[in-house]
Structure formats: C-alpha cells, structure tokens
C-alpha cells in the first residue's frame, strides 16, 4: 500500500507554480528522501500533503484518504518543519506535553531519553533556544510521536555533527523497531544517503527524479584522464558535469550499468563512483541552464 499518492498536484501563487503537476507514489513503511534545491517546492509539497495549505489543482491521498480536514489522517501524520512557529512564552516541555496529547502512539519514555540525549533545556523559553536546540524540539516530536507517516523538513538546521549523528542513529533504531513511513527533506544528502530507500528530486516545482536510492547510487560515474581521451569517451554519453585542468579533464556521466565503467577503464580512464549528493547536484545544475532557456 502507498502511504502517499499524489496525482497532478499543483500549487500556484499568482504567476508562480510552487508545485507543478506533481505525481508521486510513496510506499508505506519506507524512508523516502525529498530532495531539491532551495525553492524547488519541497516544503510546499509537504505542506500540501499535511493540509497546511490547499492545492490549486490535482488530487492526493495520504494514508488512503484525503488529508484535508481529516482528523483521522492528520492524527497519524507528523510534520516537523524548520519554520514551525511557537506562541510566546512556550517552553519545550509545553510543546512536548501538547504533542503527547495529539499523537495516539506517543512514546513518553523515548521523548524523555531524547531530551536527555540532545541536552535540551526543557524549561527555557523557546525564543531563547539556539537554532540547533529548536531543531532538537522538532526531532524529538517527530520521533516520539511514532506517527505512521512522519515528515522531516530540514530537521537538523543548526545541529552540530554529534547531534546530527545522534538523530540518524535514533531514527534508524526506532524505525527498525517501529517501521513507519518517513519522508525526509534535507540538503545534507551524503549524511542521509545510507538511510534513504527511495528518492524524489524536485526542481522548480516538478518531479525531476523518482527512483530507488540503490539505483541512483550507481546511476553515474566520474571518469578522469587526459582531456582528449575523456572527450572522446564522453562524446557517446550523457555528461552531467565536466571540469578541465590544463590537459586533464574529469567528467560525470550517466551509466548504463557496469558496462560503462568497464568501457571507461578499457579506454584508459580512471573511474570513481559518484555520491548521491554529487549526483543530485549535477542533475539539478545540468537542468538549470535548460530551464533558464
């Protein structure tokens, strides 16, 4: 069963198409990455799917139903957004207490553990928290809610490396114990690449990629060598990125399975894998000039 089904979903703000005819199907009980550059439409899509905003056109099903004004769906959906606003005077413990009442599967023990792990000052006013501590509030709610569908929108802005690692470890551990659907939007792609099972890449409001993460890990390779040899080899390939230093060149090309890498080695070129982050960077960068035209 799919946790999310969107068909031709659009969100227009006057003449701007923040989301433009997006159609995706996200399987339940998997970790999905929602990736893209700033302004690609990631947050807008998540806000649509959690009924924070209304679609201009198209349809969507979340946990099998339309989420708009649907308490049954929204009580099983947790949306952690980096821009969440809190009322004046609210403290982390206040937000956690409210969240506990709203999410039926809330785990108070886990929440308490996470507060300690993240060293979150529960009794300090939220407006006095650092950016990282504010992110920790969201992460704790997202994990402790144990919602069947959880959206994390840039969940660890301002978190240090130790806290980010803590988030990944706790997310993975809790996910293994309590499988659920997680949609993770982030710019730190390399840090989550091992976590993601499926990736949707948005660019200018449209779906650019909708693939299994495993398939994307080997979707491109980096070949390097003498300029002439690289140019000759890449003439038959789709080049995502090219860099030249004097008589040497490096190119990132799309592969056709292992045969492309083997052919490159046979042509005397060095072959290196391309990380998911670099692949995404090259894909969106390559698309930018085309879109500008």
């Amino acid at each position, binding site marked *: 069963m799919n946790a999310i089904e969107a068909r031709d979903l659009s969100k227009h703000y006057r003449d701007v198409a923040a989301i433009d005819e997006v159609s995706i199907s996200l399987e339940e009980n998997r970790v999905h990455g929602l990736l893209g550059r700033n302004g690609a439409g990631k947050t807008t899509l998540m806000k649509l799917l959690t009924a924070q905003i209304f679609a201009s056109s198209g349809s969507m099903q979340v946990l099998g139903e339309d989420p708009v*004004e649907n308490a049954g769906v*929204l009580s099983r959906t947790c949306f952690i957004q980096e821009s969440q606003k809190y009322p004046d005077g609210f403290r982390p413990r206040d937000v956690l207490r409210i969240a506990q009442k709203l999410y039926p599967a809330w785990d108070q023990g886990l929440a308490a553990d996470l507060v300690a792990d993240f060293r979150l000052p529960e009794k300090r006013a939220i407006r006095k928290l650092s950016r990282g501590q504010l992110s920790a509030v969201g992460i704790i709610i997202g994990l402790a809610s144990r919602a069947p569908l959880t959206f994390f929108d840039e969940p660890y802005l301002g978190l240090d490396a130790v806290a980010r690692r803590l988030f990944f470890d706790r997310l993975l551990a809790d996910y293994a114990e309590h499988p659920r659907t997680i949609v993770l939007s982030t710019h730190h792609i390399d840090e989550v690449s091992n976590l993601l099972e499926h990736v949707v890449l948005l660019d200018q409001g449209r779906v650019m990629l909708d693939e299994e993460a495993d398939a994307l890990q080997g979707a491109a390779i980096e070949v390097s060598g003498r300029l002439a040899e690289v140019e000759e080899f890449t003439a038959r390939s789709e080049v995502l990125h090219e860099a030249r230093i004097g008589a040497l060149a490096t190119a990132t090309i799309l592969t056709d399975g292992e045969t492309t890498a083997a052919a490159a080695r046979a042509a005397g070129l060095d072959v290196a894998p391309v990380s998911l982050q670099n692949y995404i960077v090259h894909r969106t960068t390559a698309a930018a000039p085309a879109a500008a035209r």
Partner: protein
Amino acid sequence: MRYRTVIDMHFVNRMQAYGWPLLVMVIALVIVLSIGAIVGTQGAEVRAEMYEGMTWSGAIFSLLGPLIGYGFVSMGQYFPLALGLGVTRREFAAGQSLLFLGNALAYALLVTLGKTVEAATGGFGLGIRFFDVFYTGTGASWQTFVQTFLLIVAVLFLGAAITSAFLRFGQPILWISGSLLGLLGVAIVAGIVLVDGFGGRLLELLTLSWGSWMGVIAAVGLVAAGTWVLLVRRTQVR
C-alpha cells in the same frame, strides 16, 4: 475531543495568559484606590465630583485591554502550532470558540462581582469607580454582566477574524479595510457639516437604549464569529 488540546495550549502558560492581566488589573485598582484616598482628603464635595467623573474612567481596560489582543494572538500564534501538530481547522475553531466564550464568561463574572462590591461599598469606601463605569455598564449588576460578556466576545471574535483575513488575503485586506473605515469617518464628518439634521439623527442613534446597544454589540460579535469561522476553514499556514 482533540479540540480540548487547543484549549490546553492556552493554559500552558497560565501566568502569561491569565496571571499577568489579573496582576496588572490589581495594580491599576490599587492606583485608583490610592487616588481615591488622596482626593478623599479634600472633602465630601470633591469626592462626589470624582465619583461622578470616574464614570468615564478607562482603568478597567487594564484588564479588558489585553483581551483585545487575545483574538489576534490566537490566530497569529496558536493556529500555526495547532495545525503543525495535526489539528484540523474545524477542531481549532471549536476549541478556540469555547475558549473565547469561557474567557468572556470568567472575565464578565469577575467584573460583575467587582462592580457589585464597588457599588455596595460606595466605591470601596473611597468613592472611586473602577468596575462600575460606562464601558461595563452603570446599571444593574446583571446588565454589567451581559454588557461585559458581549463586549469581550465581540472583541475576541473580531480580533480572530481580522487576523484570519490577514492570513488569508495578506496585507491588502488591512489597507482596504483601513481605507474604508477612514472613508466612513470622512463621510460622517461631511454629513454632520453639510447635511441638515444629520448630526441630530446621529446623536439619536448613539443614544439608543441600553437594550438596543446590546443588540448592536451582539450583532457585531455574531458577524465577527461567522466571518472568522468561514475564513478559518480556508486559512493556510504561512
């Protein structure tokens, strides 16, 4: 039942939501009592004049004033958090409406109690007016209760409706509404100056009976509440 959580949200920080307004009210009351004690030393005639003049005292707004902002804050600060935590707009509207009515009831009872004691003790023995003023009604205690309750309810829903309109339509709605109100003001002034009898009829309107005024306040409250309920169901979280 999740509408209860919306109410709980407002009780999270009781000191900020209820403690401070009551404390400010007590401070204002102490100041007015001090003024009464000082002026009282000037003789019975001066005290009687003060008692009469204080009919228009606005000191009670130390309590009612923050309530004007309460409607704005509910939509501006609590609505985004409620929706962020998966509350539906319908649940939010139900919880928030109950909270508005509960607040109005509690504060109206407090003001009525204060007014009754104040009237019975001749202004707490000092000839002052704090609760027993024009804005809360100088008639019978039950009239104070009705007037205060209706005023608070109307103001709360009006504040929520204005913020919802802002969230829904953005700044233009504030500019348009402000301009229309300004035009209305200019039209009234023009009517008084240019049209014979307009001023007289306006005065008649303004000196309607107490019951008629309560009808007007209730109508404003109902329109504000209706507008808010309509708008909140289409309001998006920015």
